[in-house]
């Protein structure tokens, strides 16, 4: 069985339930968005897959192999995490070579080429890098490591708009040339929405959405009009959120749309992933 399979995984920290019986599968050669608010359990899940944390119960398998203390399984996965696991006195050059020891398919030439493109001085010590360049350093390794599964935890933290664009472009190029599974956890949803094939949304340690992005966004729509018009229109519909601005009201609706029943004066727009995410994860 190919893919990362997570089966009934739970994890608690003290009396906080970080993951509650989570089951999901990341298939081969797809780009996933793992979305959730701060503290929702995204990093915990990624850390459990890569043995940096251990689940209280449940199993993870990677291409059918149990993930725990199992090198053949772990060699298939690379986690670009928020935490820096490299010795801080190491230079970027040394860190690249060090990575090559652990991941034999790591492409050193490509990494050095990326360093040039990002203008990262590889002679610098890792600890002396700014927040943005620490992210760039980690991105370079993640894009050069050539494992079948690459997990990106907040990859664009501290990156300016130009560098974020570069990262998205390189990710697509890398994925097109040599497909792999990318799991991206980010808060900048608008920027990657169109890049994702599948979306998983975690809320309070539970998976609330696990679906293809296209299917998810076709499940609903938004309408805008005057308050009375919109209220009349949404009376018999499943509404997941409303916003009022002056006399205008916008309602986000789950359900299929029958255009012939929509009055002229109501404007229909598509769901967008970020807005949907906000509606679904807002605490009441």
């Amino acid at each position: 069985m190919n893919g990362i399979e997570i089966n009934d995984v739970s994890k608690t920290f003290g009396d906080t339930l970080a993951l509650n019986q989570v089951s999901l599968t990341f298939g081969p050669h797809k780009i996933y968005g793992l979305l959730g608010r701060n503290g929702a359990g995204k990093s915990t899940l990624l850390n459990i897959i890569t043995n940096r944390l251990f689940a209280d119960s449940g199993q993870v398998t990677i291409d059918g192999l149990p993930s725990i203390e199992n090198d053949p399984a772990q060699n298939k996965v690379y986690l670009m995490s928020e935490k820096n696991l490299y010795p801080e006195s190491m230079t970027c050059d040394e860190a690249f070579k060090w990575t090559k020891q652990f991941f034999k398919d790591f492409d050193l030439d490509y990494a050095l080429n990326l360093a040039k493109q990002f203008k990262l001085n590889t002679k610098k010590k890792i600890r002396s890098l700014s927040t943005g360049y620490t992210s760039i350093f980690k991105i370079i390794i993640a894009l050069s490591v050539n494992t079948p599964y690459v997990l990106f935890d907040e990859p664009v933290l501290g990156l300016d708009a130009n560098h974020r664009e570069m990262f998205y472009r390189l990710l697509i190029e890398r994925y097109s040339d040599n497909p792999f599974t990318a799991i991206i956890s980010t808060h900048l949803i608008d920027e990657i929405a169109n890049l994702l094939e599948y979306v998983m949304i975690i809320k309070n340690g539970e998976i609330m959405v696990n679906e293809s992005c296209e299917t998810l966004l076709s499940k609903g729509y938004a309408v805008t009009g005057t308050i009375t018009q919109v209220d009349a229109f949404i009376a018999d519909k499943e509404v997941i959120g409303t916003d009022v601005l002056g006399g205008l009201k916008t309602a986000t609706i789950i359900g299929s749309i029958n255009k012939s029943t929509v009055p002229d004066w109501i404007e229909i727009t598509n769901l967008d992933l970020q807005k949907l995410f906000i509606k679904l994860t807002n605490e009441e």
Partner: protein
Amino acid sequence: MQINFEDERPIFAQIADGIEDAILTGAFEESGQIPSITELSVSYKINPATALKGISLLVDEGILFKKRGVGMFVAPGAVSRLRDKRKELFFDHYIKKLIEEAKKLGITNKEILEMVERGYQE
């Protein structure tokens, strides 16, 4: 090729439309090569599977064809085929909407025709 993702249709359909527009305006010439899936995905920041879906739509309609190992090309005769297809949709997409709006504003049938005349002359 310009695409505005604010549109209410799925992205792959908008990619297909964008390519059609570029063929109709001559930006992509008949028998000429069009950008690769990777180039399309990178410039619009979309998943390559989405770009592929848009391209496949046009391959199925015979507007584009694939040369193995080389890339995607515009089929000979694509322009006239696209014109025929767009003409069929012209009434639904433009005329119906025009009349709807005209009715709201109280513009008569005769006034519309005059405006159309004026539009052609300008």
